């Protein structure tokens, strides 16, 4: 698969503060590529540079064969952007929002109307098309924002926290639409701190922290490599805790991480579960779950609160 975005030693500084600190990545045509990380990791800054609304401080950034410094208008013409914030036009109707946006791309009225009808149908907004924006629920607004981002049939769809603030039903509906778009071959960039979302949608992803990329891979690879198969979350204290930690030495397939009063124990080998069961038999409070991206994320970026 050919690459559609390439970043080499990409740097972004604001008044002495380094938001993105020399990152390299490339995105292949047709894949969903995720940027994960805590708030302030540099994900949004990175996609803003790709979207040509934030100048690159240093390094190389090529989007669809064009340098972001030289051809911002042409790059923007082939991007669809779904921002984190709601910036629909509140005074216009659903349909007018799409029509006004289509005009920014110099689309003819006929073509715009055809595309608007298609996207209203795809996003189940046909019945709402003449409603004003203030009458829409958060979920409907999100769907409309994604529909707006697709109006120019972009080569790359940039999604910044597309389901933040949505209830579970609305979130699953958005995911379903995004999976459909990926099947249609739309390249997607997804910034998120929802691990479940990344696991659902991303072919490959990077985890960012403090302006750097910590790891890169597919969700399954990263889980396998950094946390293994199963995780036990154990709440023990005092002598019991010491005993569990001492026993850890006898379990070669296990790794442990201590956070406050909780021990996270990762089973990395196939018989890890059995070892874990022996180990924790007497503990007062233990919960098991299948290792997931969230464990990778928290192991790499720390479980402490990031402000």
């Amino acid at each position, binding site marked *: 698969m050919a690459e559609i975005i390439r970043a080499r030693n990409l740097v972004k500084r*604001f008044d002495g503060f380094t938001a993105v600190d020399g990152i390299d990545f490339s995105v292949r045509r047709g894949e969903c590529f995720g940027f994960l990380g805590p708030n302030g990791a540099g994900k949004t800054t990175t996609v803003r540079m790709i*979207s040509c*609304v*934030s*100048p690159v401080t240093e390094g190389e950034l090529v989007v669809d064969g064009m340098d972001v410094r030289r051809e*911002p*208008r*042409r790059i*923007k*013409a082939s*991007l669809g*952007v779904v*921002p984190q*914030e*709601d*910036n*629909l*036009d*509140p*005074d*216009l109707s659903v349909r*007018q929002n799409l029509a*006004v*946006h289509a*005009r*920014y*791309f*110099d689309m003819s009225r006929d073509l715009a109307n055809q595309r608007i009808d298609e996207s209203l149908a795809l996003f189940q907004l046909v019945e709402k098309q003449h409603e004003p924006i203030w009458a829409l629920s958060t979920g409907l607004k999100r769907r409309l924002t994604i529909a707006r981002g697709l109006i*120019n049939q972009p080569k790359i769809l940039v999604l910044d926290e597309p389901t933040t603030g949505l209830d579970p039903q609305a979130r699953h509906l958005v995911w379903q639409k995004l999976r459909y778009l990926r099947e249609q071959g739309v390249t997607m960039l997804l910034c998120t701190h929802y691990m479940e979302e990344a696991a659902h949608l991303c072919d490959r992803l990077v985890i960012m922290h403090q302006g750097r990329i910590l790891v890169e891979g597919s969700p399954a690879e990263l889980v396998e490599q950094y946390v293994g198969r199963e995780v036990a979350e154990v709440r023990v204290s005092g002598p019991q805790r010491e005993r569990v930690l001492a026993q850890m030495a006898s379990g070669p397939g296990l790794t442990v991480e201590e956070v406050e009063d909780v021990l996270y124990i990762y089973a990395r080998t196939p018989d890890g579960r059995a070892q874990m069961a022996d180990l924790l038999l007497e503990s007062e409070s233990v919960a098991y779950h299948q290792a997931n991206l969230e464990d990778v994320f928290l192991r790499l970026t720390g479980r402490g609160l990031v402000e």
Partner: protein
Amino acid sequence: MTIALPRIGARLPDVSYRAYRVWQRNRDVYLRLWKAEAIWPLAEPLITLLALGLGLGELITEAELPGGQRYIEFIAPGILAVFPMWAAAGECGWGSFFRMENQRTYHAIIATPVSIEDVITGEILWGATRGFISSVYILAVSAAFGLLHSPLVLLVPVMAYVSSLMFASVSLSYTSIARSISSLNYFFALFITPQFWLGGVFFPLERLPEELQVASWFVPATHVVDIYRGLVQGHLNLGHLGDLAWIAVVAAIFYYVALISMRRRLIQ
């Protein structure tokens, strides 16, 4: 071998025909709200002409005004100048700030092939259009009072557009540095309102102390009011060309300031 060129601080503003797309967006919103938007530009001049023109004006003897006019005839051209000033400055002050910070409309637009300079240009063209619309309403009100006699008044909306370009540019320049919507109050209280009352609309400037008369040359509204007096009374002279040049220069300077300052604010 690649050569790293030094970053040049001053880049040329990237303005294109797409500014018109921004103007069209504002027009579409206006057309949805036009009935509510029509109230101010109709009610304000009507009330002013009634209260000051007829009410207060009856107490003022004609001999005290230049050319022996009635007071209502004296203030009509001034009102044609200052209400469109409010319309244009308000649009690029409160209106633009609201679009930029509350609705995040600018952010939505610059994610498309439209540049931030196109947005600024479109906003100023739209602010001027609001001045133009306001002047048309006021012309209608003034005509109803029987205050228009010269065919030159047909040029009033054109002049309203030109002078509103200036007020819109000045206003948007201030908006580009405003931290909150309430800090726009400084601009309107200290810059727009004094022009409204002291720009030669309600009394001849010759009444002011000499120093203030000199200072009034620097006040944009003074030059606009001058031109309207010529248009409404049906006699223009070369001095009006000077006024027009003054307006063009100030508009150009503040248009450039708005372009640079808004880019600095929004493109980081």
